[in-house]
């Protein structure tokens, strides 16, 4: 039996990680995978760190990914990518939004947002893609679709074919926003070489 594909979605409360993980799970479900997904509610919603763990495979037991074993990380904010970097295996894939949200201790001047976060991550994990997802989403019509841009970029790395992603977007995204989000997904998909 193959080891499941382990995916981390990390970001800051309010960035749309939950919606992204819903689309991901719907696509994986359509593709016939067993799935476990784990997220933490509560305090995280008040601007705190948010992490969703998704595991896909023939048969998945644990809802939690083992530290150092994640295959893919989709990071909505660059500091969060650094926070969860130790969860990645060294030949894993990282897709990171080139976007910073300063935590309150940084805003208050009692902590520093580290410089060169992206350079550090690129050095440690060669399979790292950096995207300006907010700008790409803006060019698609709505900067809030940055989460779906990132998802599109990740789709390339996943053992789930394109049609299942389309089905998932159709079933999860409200009809009113579907066009923009489909555009955002394609833009993300095509942004990765």
């Amino acid at each position, binding site marked *: 039996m193959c080891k499941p594909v382990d995916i981390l979605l990390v970001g800051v409360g309010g960035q749309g990680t939950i919606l992204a993980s819903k689309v991901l799970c719907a696509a994986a479900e359509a593709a016939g995978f067993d799935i476990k997904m784990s997220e933490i509610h509560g305090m995280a919603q008040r601007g*705190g760190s948010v992490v969703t763990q998704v595991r896909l495979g023939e048969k998945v037991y644990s809802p939690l990914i083992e530290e150092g074993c994640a295959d893919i990380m989709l990071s909505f904010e660059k500091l969060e990518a*650094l926070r969860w970097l130790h969860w990645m295996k060294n030949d894993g894939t990282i897709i990171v939004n080139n976007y910073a949200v300063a935590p309150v201790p940084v805003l*208050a001047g009692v902590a520093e947002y580290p410089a060169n976060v992206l350079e550090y991550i690129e050095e440690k994990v060669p399979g790292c893609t950096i995207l300006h997802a907010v700008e790409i989403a803006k060019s698609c019509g709505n900067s809030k679709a940055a989460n779906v841009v990132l998802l599109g970029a990740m789709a390339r790395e996943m053992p789930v074919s394109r049609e299942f992603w389309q089905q998932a977007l159709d079933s999860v995204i409200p009809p009113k926003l579907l066009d923009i989000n489909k555009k955002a997904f394609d833009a993300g998909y095509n942004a990765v070489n």
Partner: protein
Amino acid sequence: MKNLLSGNAAIARGAYEAGVILAAGYPGTPSTEILENLSRYKNVYSEWAPNEKVALEVALGSSFSGARSLVTMKHVGVNVAADPLLTSAYTGVNGGLVLVSADDPGMHSSQNEQDNRRLAALAKLPVLEPASSQEAKEMVLQGFEISEKYDIPVILRITTRIAHSQGYVLLKDPVSREVREYNKNPRKNLMVPGYARMRRIDLDKRVENLRLYSEDTPVNCIEGSSSAVGIITSGVSYQYVKEVLPNTAVFKLGMTNPLPVQRIKEFAGSVEKLYIVEELEPFIEEQLQILGINATGKDLFPNTGEFSPGLLRSIFARAGVLEEDEHKNAEIDDAPAVPGRPPVLCPGCPHRGVFYTLRKMKLSVTGDIGCYTLGGLPPIEGIDSCVCMGASIGMAHGAEKVSPVMKDKTVAVIGDSTFMHSGITGLLNLVYNKGTSTVIILDNRTTAMTGHQDHPATGCTLMGEKAPELDIEALCRALGVNRVNTVDPLDLSQLKETIKNEIDAAEPSVIIARRPCALLSKEPVGPRVEVDLESCEGCGACLKLGCPAISMQEDKASVDPFTCNGCGICIQVCKFGALVKGGNSSV
């Protein structure tokens, strides 16, 4: 048909399939979504009670009257419901009664991490522990069968990782929804000493029968065989064990109270070395010790926090049960320090100005449970203490009674939902015993922390119907408080003056700081704030508000227009008039 469901959604589905007629609860992470999901099923009546004790009493009345009844709460909520719970074991049920206790190992969103299997054992109640969403659904149905067959309430004990993890669940049709016949039976249902003594003896008989049931139930099952190592586990820990030791013999306990003692003895006898893998308390382990069964548990595995596959792998590797994999994760020992990202009061939160003012006035503040507990964290640090739901008022009263230092400078702060949960009796006590404390009710018109649930003062029920709206001012006056003031917490000068007046008053006062939660509306509170760079002295006073929209850029204040909610508190805090209302109300 199968659906990907969280444990909480699966429990709601299970209740629907089991023919539950009534469900009640009080919101609390990680239990809240059970009733939210259940309220969407037709033909099931569900309600938010003001607290867990009332919720259980509602469910008991419904059960006595013959209806299958579900009651949901977080682990500490069971403390509140403990009074009816412990005696309901004596009375037993008519329609089945299942209580979901959602425990929170690791305290993701809780003030303690008590293991409610211990509380269930104290109450002599059977405990089911699911390891997946599918099991969570099935165990609701099994719980109702046990409850009715053995005439006893059943505890379905889940943890955060079961409640908030998703997996496939097979959906089935519901059983028919029937109310059993009600027969008046004081010897069973009227717990006066004479009858309670009889029910106490009967309870032991029922527990003994449950012990036999536990030996037979398929949810206690042995997987695999190996004479070398055996593992006893339950709940989500089972999944972690399967992850790291897929081929080892495992005795998976779906029913952890009472334990299947005979089968555990046999299992222990079939392996050379026995491990017990359970989160939090050594609940299974200590019972095995009493039975004289040699097993290793808390000597190796921590009694605090959550387990994970990685934790189990490293512990089993140290114990020589498996070989540690070579290090395959990225080497990041030289990573730059990552600043924490703690949860904070939202932009535009009506609580922010209250805590800022209390801190400025150098008052002692007894706090309570809700979003506003975040007002105790840096940089605001406007709360001295927080223990449990409703504690703030009693604690302020006690502090003022004994300490000349605390007298006339202690304030209790409590949210609207928390006040109705268990603050009302504290206020009654304050009046009755001639306290002089000042109580601030932070009335944001919702139960915010758990995701905006309705309560008796919102004018709406869980099922979306209109309801009478509690008049909090009138209630406080009826309790005997003469000084009841209502203020807008975004008006800092009025707020400060009111607090000062009420602190000085030689009798109890209530200040209701009323303003809806900033997240209840998609519209900003007011025009976004801009910085007049000429006037800004870079003093940093605005940073003391801990607002996610405000930062210093090149020694001047900066307000992020996308984050600012236009509450205008910072405008009032700035001594130099450098923060001003923006021209447009939208960005």
